[in-house]
Structure formats: C-alpha cells, structure tokens
C-alpha cells in the first residue's frame, strides 16, 4: 500500500529529493550569492511549472503567461508595500489598499488568486482559438497587459520600479512553494481533466469525437496555470523587494520558454530539469561576465554572451532533440521489475 503510494508519487518525489539536497547544501555551505542563485532557480521552477500546466498538457504554446506573474506581483505590492509613500505615489488605488497594509501571507494568497481570476477571464476569450491563432493572441495579451501596466501611472507608477516590498523569501520557502507547484501540476496531470486535456493535445479531432470539451479543459488548465504563475509572481516580488513592469515581458517569456523547451515541454520532469540545467548554465556565464580570476588573471567575457549562448542552446535543442532532454518522459520508478513497465509508464499517459 505504502509502496503503491510511493510509486504513484514518485515523479514528484524523485524531483523534490535532489532539489532538497541542493537547497540543504546551499543553505549550509554556500555563500550568499550561491544561496540567492538557488532561490532564484527555485522561483523559476514555480514559473516554468506554471507554464507547463497549460503548455505541456494542452500543447498550445502561450507567450502571455508572465503577465499573470506581473498581475500577482503588483497585487501583493499594493497590499504590503511602502505604507508611507503609497498614498502619494499610487494615489489611484482604492482606499482599502491605499491606506492599509496587510500581512504578507494573506496578501500573497489573494494576489495569486487574483492572477488565476485574470487568467480565467482572459482564457474565456483566448481559449476559443486554437493552434497558432491561440499562441498569437496570448502574445497580444502580453502586450496589452504591458501597455496597461506601463501607463496606468496612478496605480502602478508606470514603468518606474516599486521599491521596498518586504523580502521574506528564503531558499526553504521557495523550495516549499516549488514543491507545492509541482504537486498541483502532477495532481492535475493525472486527474481525469488532465488526461482529457492531454488527449486533445495528441489528437484534437479524436478527442472532440470522444466527447471532450476542448474549450473547458483548456480553460481549466489556463486558470490553474494562472494561479501557479501568480505564486511565482509573489515570490519574485518578495525575493527582490522591487518590481517593475518590464521585468515581466519578452525577455522573461523567452527565458522561461527556453527552460521548458530544453527540458521537454511534455513532462513535469522536463519542466523542472530544464530550469535546473539552464539556471546552472546562465549562472556560470553570469559569473564569468562579471569576471573570474584564472591563475591570478582577471578574465571576463563580454556582457551579452550569456544571452547569445542561451539562444544557441535553445536552437540546438530545437534542432537535434526537439522533445527536450527528457523526451517527454517522467522519472520512472527506479526499482521496477520488467513486467511492471506498464505501471511505471502511468505518469506518462
């Protein structure tokens, strides 16, 4: 019985255990900068798992998801930030936000829920489209939200940064939220709705013919992924302590999509592995850009190399391993006997 449960939960546990070891090592032995890199990567895991819930299960590529991060980040900033300056810099806020400050936990939860509501409302319109038209309109949605948040000066301070959010995000908190995101994603993917959505990904016509409503399944996934993106947005805001609308735009979209594609967008393991690999590579390049000393000599590679390498990695994976590093498989139960292969493949279904 316990073994069965363990097997069922393995795709998540098998990801969480190594991550826990990394966090533990960084927490005990790492310098502050290593600790920050690890936290950042964990937040990226929440983000990419959020992307995965929709893109991985439905097969529709969305370029607009980081907007929901922005929505949640701003929502939590309105509730927790800078009580003294708020009435002046963000005078357009409604009174209950302008003159009150709320505790961080309810603020974070309500912000993530607001993001999922926004995803639901956008989804009501966007999910009517399918294929490439859906992808394009998510891109349009990204631009719409960017324009609105950049110009709604009285509420968002325009393109200026909001500074002074409480920074309470530790590696362990980020790890806990990443775990929560992975559990949500996994439960959704093995649920009957998740299965139905995966069926529409493989063959939309056949799925429709079997009585699956493509619209509602996609909308459910879109809303749920909006919630997880919201969680990522809250973490992001309270990790850096400052937010600005242009952080949540094309560059972040590109990096998170790269992570998902490199890992393999059709499995949860792929989403997580992609983040780990790309974060590791970019972190090393970033350190090299700021200069490393090799045998007494300070060597730095020019700024921008990090992005160039990232783009090349992305293209190489797209060309030579289109299904990503994991090829769309989940971590298999390592102690399986031959005949139980069908069981271990269950998570892949």
């Amino acid at each position, binding site marked *: 019985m316990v073994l069965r449960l363990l097997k069922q939960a393995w795709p998540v546990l098998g990801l969480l255990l190594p991550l826990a070891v990394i966090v533990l090592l960084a927490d005990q032995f790492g310098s502050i900068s290593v600790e920050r890199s690890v936290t950042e990567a964990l937040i990226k895991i929440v983000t990419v798992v959020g992307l995965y819930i929709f893109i991985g299960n439905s097969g529709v590529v969305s370029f607009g998801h980081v907007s929901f991060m922005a929505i949640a980040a701003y929502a939590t900033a309105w509730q927790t930030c800078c009580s003294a300056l708020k009435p002046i810099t963000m005078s357009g806020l409604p009174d209950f936000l302008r003159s009150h400050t709320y505790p961080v936990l309810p603020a974070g939860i309500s912000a993530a829920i607001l993001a999922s509501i926004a995803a639901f409302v956008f989804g009501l*319109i966007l999910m009517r489209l399918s294929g*490439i038209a859906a992808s394009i309109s998510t891109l349009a949605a990204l631009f719409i939200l960017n324009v609105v948040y950049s110009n709604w000066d009285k509420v968002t301070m325009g393109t200026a940064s909001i500074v002074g959010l409480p920074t309470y995000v530790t590696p362990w908190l980020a790890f806990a939220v990443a775990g929560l995101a992975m559990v949500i994603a996994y439960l959704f993917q093995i649920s009957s709705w998740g299965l139905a959505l995966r069926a529409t990904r493989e063959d939309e016509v056949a799925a429709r013919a079997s009585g699956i409503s493509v619209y509602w399944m996609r909308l459910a996934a879109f809303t749920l992924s909006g919630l997880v993106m919201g969680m990522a947005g809250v973490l992001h805001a309270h990790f850096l302590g400052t937010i600005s609308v242009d952080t949540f735009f094309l560059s972040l979209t590109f990096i998170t*999509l790269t992570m998902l594609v490199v890992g393999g967008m059709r499995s949860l393991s792929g989403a997580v592995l992609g983040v780990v690999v790309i974060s590791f590579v970019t972190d090393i390049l970033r350190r090299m850009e700021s200069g490393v000393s090799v045998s007494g000599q300070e060597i730095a590679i020019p700024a921008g*190399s990090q992005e*160039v390498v990232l*783009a090349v990695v*992305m*293209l190489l994976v797209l*060309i030579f391993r289109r299904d990503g590093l994991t090829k769309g498989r989940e971590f298999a139960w390592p102690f399986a006997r031959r005949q139980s292969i069908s069981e271990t493949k269950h998570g892949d279904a």
Partner: protein
Amino acid sequence: MLNFIQVLFDAAALGSLYALVALAIGLVFGIMRLINFAQGDYLTIGAYALVVPTASVTPPLLFGALPWPLMVAGVLATCIIVALLTERIAFRPLRNANPATLLISSFAVSYFIQHALMLVHTGRPKSIAMGSSLAQAIDIFGVRIPGVQLVTMTVTVSLLIGFVILLKKTAIGIQMRAAAENFQMARLLGVRANKVIAFGFALSGFLAGIVSLLLVAQTGTLDIKMGIMPVIFAFFATVIGGMGSLAGAALGGFLVGVTSVLLQAYLPPDLRAFRDAGVFALVILVLLVRPKGLIPSSASRERV
C-alpha cells in the same frame, strides 16, 4: 479639415511601413508556416551596417559614408545575406516542425541576433545623421508633409506593384504561389523546395533592408531593439489580414498603422497612452470574429 488630411497622411505613411514588414512576414509564412520574429532583427542589422562598430554614441559611418546608391545596395545585401544565413542554419533543419516550434525558434534567432549585435556595437542607442534632405517638409495646398513620408509611400506603392508583377508573371513567383498554396503538391510537380524558400527569405531580407533605411531616415537613431515594435505590429497585421495571404498582409499593415495613428489623434488625452493596447485588442477581436483573418488564404488551414 486640413488637420484631418495631415493625420491621414501620417496614418498612410506608418501603414505603408508596417505593410512592408507584414509583407515580408507573410511571404515566409505562406511558404513554410514560419512566423519569422527575426524579421525585425534583419532590419536592425541593416541599420547598424550603416556605421562602424564602436562604443561611441555618434559612430563614424560605414555604409552610410558611401554615395547613396552604393549605400542602399550595401544595406540590402547585408539584410539579404543575414536572412539567408538564418534560413540555412536555423530554419532549414526545422522545416517539418509544427508552427509553434518554428515560432519559438524564430524567437531564439531574434534573441541571438539582438545580443550578438550588442556584443559588437554595445547596447547604447546611437544617433546618425542621414537623409537630412528627406526630413524637410513639403507644402501641398497648406498640408505639410515630411519628405520621408512621401518617399515611404512612393516606395511602398511601387514595391507592391513590383511584387504583384513578380508573383504573377515570373516563373519563380508562380512557383512561390504554388508552394504557398500546397507545398507538397508543388514539390511533386517539380518546384524545388530549397530554392523557393531561400528566394522567399531573400525577398524578406530585401524588404527588411528597405524598411531599415526608411526608419533610419525618419528617426536618425539606432537602437538594438528598434526592430521589435515594427515587427510586432506587422506580425499582428499579418494575423488580421489573414496568415499567408499577401494582399491580406499588406492590407493588415495599413489597417494597423492607420488605427494606431487615428487612435493617437482622436482618443481623449487620458486614454492616449493606452493606444497600443487598443491595437492589440483589435487583433484578438479579429481573430475571434474571423479566425482566418480578413482575407483568408489556403495557407491558413491547419495541415492534417
């Protein structure tokens, strides 16, 4: 009334520019289902080819120093070569991938070009003195029209006519239309895929070169991200017009440009900042009402 005519001219000039970029995107999409986001970066490279790579804000001229026919030829050649290179290296191996994968790969190419340019030219915006004779306004019945706008419109109209002739009358043009209609069938009938696709990319590079010259003549500035907004608008223009339909792309470009200028001119001042959001909302609206665009083509069908 005069004011209105002036606004109309602004609208037509901006619309022409978007139409040219949209045409390039539409050409490539029609043949290989690739929405080429890197189109904007071809034109950025073209613009940067005018100057010598330095960290200076007012850099010495490279192609910009040549007499203008040579300068135009230099920029066009640069854009065409870059377009062909990206096709050969990045897009050809992915030819049978689905449109979403292709779109992601074109994002990667665009990201690559931008940051490679940043490595060479640094990320600072630069200014460049060029085409000052074009910047003078011409007075026509009391309406002042900047020379650049007239040139833009003239170039667009003549290019559109040129394209129609190319596509209807020449062998390669007919092959391109056949490939856009049904790629498999065209190949079976002896159309050479590599040649037609490479020609499509060369044309899109050519258009990028033209647009980059027009843009630089208008603004006199260089910026790593200067290609992004034109390509975004043009990209949405092709969607509105109908993916893969060239007439649709040109029409969509005009519509987007005109809508943008009209909203800027006639929205109440409080809402003016949100103008672009209105244009993008128009995209979603058109997709909802007519998912295949205003002028649908056979290319907008999903291939089974």
